[in-house]
């Protein structure tokens, strides 16, 4: 059970299993399509018997994220998952967690909005995910998996980044990736933190005031504006550090490319097919797939912009990431957006058509 | 017959002069000072020697600024 292992799994299940193996201490969630498999898998798996991990169905997303806040305050590896309408409810808690600088992992299986919208896959939560989401100046580290394997790999990676930077990490997925089945290699079981390790490695954790130290306080409140400004400056410095160290992306057939698609997650899978179609037609097309959306791969996109004729941002939204692509490119080359909304996944031929009409012909 | 004698010490700098301790005292030991402390509160002080060390005043003091002593006198 705890050895490295190859299995055929849904993305959501792979994420859940990988989280157990990553040594997670607690999961707190509230059902919403298309990610309910995460909690269902965990409940069926009884991780308490395997590792001691707690799984709790909360009364709401608000409660779930605040349970994460409480658990994270104790230096525990805690997580939650939801989908767009639930993520809106979690924003208050996420803001507190970011303000108090706590580690945690959050999965958003994005569905089309606004409002109750649709349960079909979408990427319309890009702004919310990468620009803060709740109130105040803060950022989440945002990982964008595009395969079941990455759903599994990003669970331990997210916990490690969360603890390295004392910052919430968001995994931005959707129902397509969550519910598709693929072969996945699962990592070996990592042990959960012991109380001794928590007290040593995360000395800020509220685990009970022992005589050898002052009391620990987890708070996001600073009534003194100067102190609050200092705190904001510290947070911004941390985000710059994250930008420097943690930007992740992948390039596919970019070496000789004259045009580039920029796409993440599900859009990246389809864009990769679009690259093949375009190349069969003689168009030298490449793909840059951001793996982290914050920090955004600004630099590699800017570099590509020096040697290509145009860049198409492909998103399942009205055009959100395209703003970051434009910031990276400036006016070096034309940047266009192509997207479908409302839960519709663009087809690869559609993407090639958009490229031709918006960039090559236009 | 054994008799008890009490006394209280009020941390006057931390006293907020709320006077909640006054009705709690069975022997009217506590009264309001004419003087104010650093925070501008008219703190309270002992006004007679009748303290029996019952701690009633300290128990109701919201700011926990009263220390109570009691000694048995044979």
């Amino acid at each position, binding site marked *: 059970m705890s050895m490295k292992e190859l299995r055929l799994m849904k993305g959501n299940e792979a994420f859940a299993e990988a989280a157990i193996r990553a040594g997670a201490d607690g999961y707190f969630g509230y059902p919403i399509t298309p990610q309910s498999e995460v909690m269902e898998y965990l409940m069926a798996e009884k991780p308490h018997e395997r590792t001691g991990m707690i799984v709790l169905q909360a009364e709401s997303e608000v409660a779930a994220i605040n349970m994460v806040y409480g658990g994270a305050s104790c230096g525990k590896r805690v997580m939650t998952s939801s989908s767009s309408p639930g993520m809106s409810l979690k924003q208050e808690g996420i803001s*507190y967690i970011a303000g108090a600088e706590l580690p945690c992992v959050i999965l958003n299986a994005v569905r089309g909005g606004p409002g109750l919208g649709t349960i079909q896959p979408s990427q319309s939560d890009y702004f919310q995910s990468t620009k803060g989401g709740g109130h105040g100046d803060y950022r989440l580290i945002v990982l964008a998996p595009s395969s079941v394997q990455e759903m599994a790999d990003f669970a331990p990676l997210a916990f490690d980044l969360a603890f390295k930077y004392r910052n919430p990490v968001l995994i931005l997925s959707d129902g397509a990736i969550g519910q598709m089945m693929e072969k996945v290699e699962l990592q070996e079981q990592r042990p959960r933190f012991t109380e001794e390790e928590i007290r040593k490695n995360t000395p800020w954790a509220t685990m009970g005031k022992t005589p050898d130290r002052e009391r620990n306080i987890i708070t996001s409140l600073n009534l003194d504006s100067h102190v609050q400004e200092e705190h904001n400056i510290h947070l911004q410095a941390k985000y710059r550090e994250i930008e420097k160290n943690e930007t992740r992306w992948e390039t596919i057939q970019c070496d000789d490319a004259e045009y580039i698609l920029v796409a993440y997650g599900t859009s990246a899978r389809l864009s990769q097919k679009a690259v093949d179609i375009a190349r069969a037609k003689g168009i030298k097309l490449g793909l840059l797939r951001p793996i982290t959306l914050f920090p955004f791969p600004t630099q590699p996109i800017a570099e590509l912009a020096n040697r290509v004729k145009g860049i198409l941002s492909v998103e399942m939204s009205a055009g959100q990431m395209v703003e970051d692509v434009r910031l990276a490119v400036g006016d070096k080359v034309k940047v266009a957006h192509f997207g479908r909304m409302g839960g519709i996944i663009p087809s690869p031929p559609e993407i090639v058509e958009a490229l031709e009409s918006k960039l090559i012909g236009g | 017959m054994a008799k008890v*004698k009490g006394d209280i010490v009020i941390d006057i700098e931390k006293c907020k002069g709320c006077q909640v301790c006054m009705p709690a005292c069975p022997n009217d030991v506590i009264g309001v000072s004419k003087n104010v402390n650093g925070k501008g509160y008219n703190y309270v002080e002992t006004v007679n020697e009748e303290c029996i060390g019952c*701690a009633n005043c300290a128990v109701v003091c919201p700011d926990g600024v009263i220390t109570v002593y009691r000694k048995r006198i044979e």
Partner: protein
Amino acid sequence: MDTISKEDIRKPENIVYKRTELLTDKVMSYCPGCGHGTAHRIIMEVLEEMGIQDKTIGIAPVGCSVLAYEFMNIDMQQAAHGRAPALATAVKRLNPDKFVFTYQGDGDLAAIGTAETIHACNRGENIVIIFINNGIYGMTGGQMAPTTLEGMKSSTSPYGRDIKSMGNPIKMTELVAQLPGTIYVTRQAVHTPANVRKAKKAVRKAFENQKLNKGLSFVEIVSNCNSGWKMTPNQANQWMVDNMFPFYPLGDIKVNED
């Protein structure tokens, strides 16, 4: 008779009452005469007497007691408005050997945090909830709370709470007593020495219950908000006796001994 001097009485061995070490030296930010301070003190005295400072995690609310962590010398977390029971749920589930309590006002617990309160109680989380009911939103300047009495004036019910348009005051404590998850539900006050002593016993019982893994203990403390009520502290305590206690009667509401 009075041959004994003050110096003879004021000796360490004669101390019968002193401020607990579990309160920090900071002057509490509460208005003079506010019950929050007394409530803080009895909780800290109980933790000290039980010797569980190193095992206790407190959750502060949003409200006047948002800064409780400045005064309580224990590890603490500051929750978003109303969410303390959710934090406490996770803290206790993840650390079953720790003692966990929330400290919440009536706006925090009975308005914005109603869902978190009811469900933590209903799940029977093995925690202690301390509920400071002063019938008003103290911190934000004395607005109407869910607990504000009929006819009671506040800054958002300047002509008195009108039941028809503003709804009824809510008795959260009676409400949570209905839930099988709560094992000890009581209403106390801290305005007189006798009441403080009783309230402290209730708090002690609540933490002892947690020690025995019995379930959720809920201790309401009816308290004055003399600033919000616009009275002196002693007037406010009298007003509380005359007006709050008839609607929020003191005493145990549920005591599950098994």
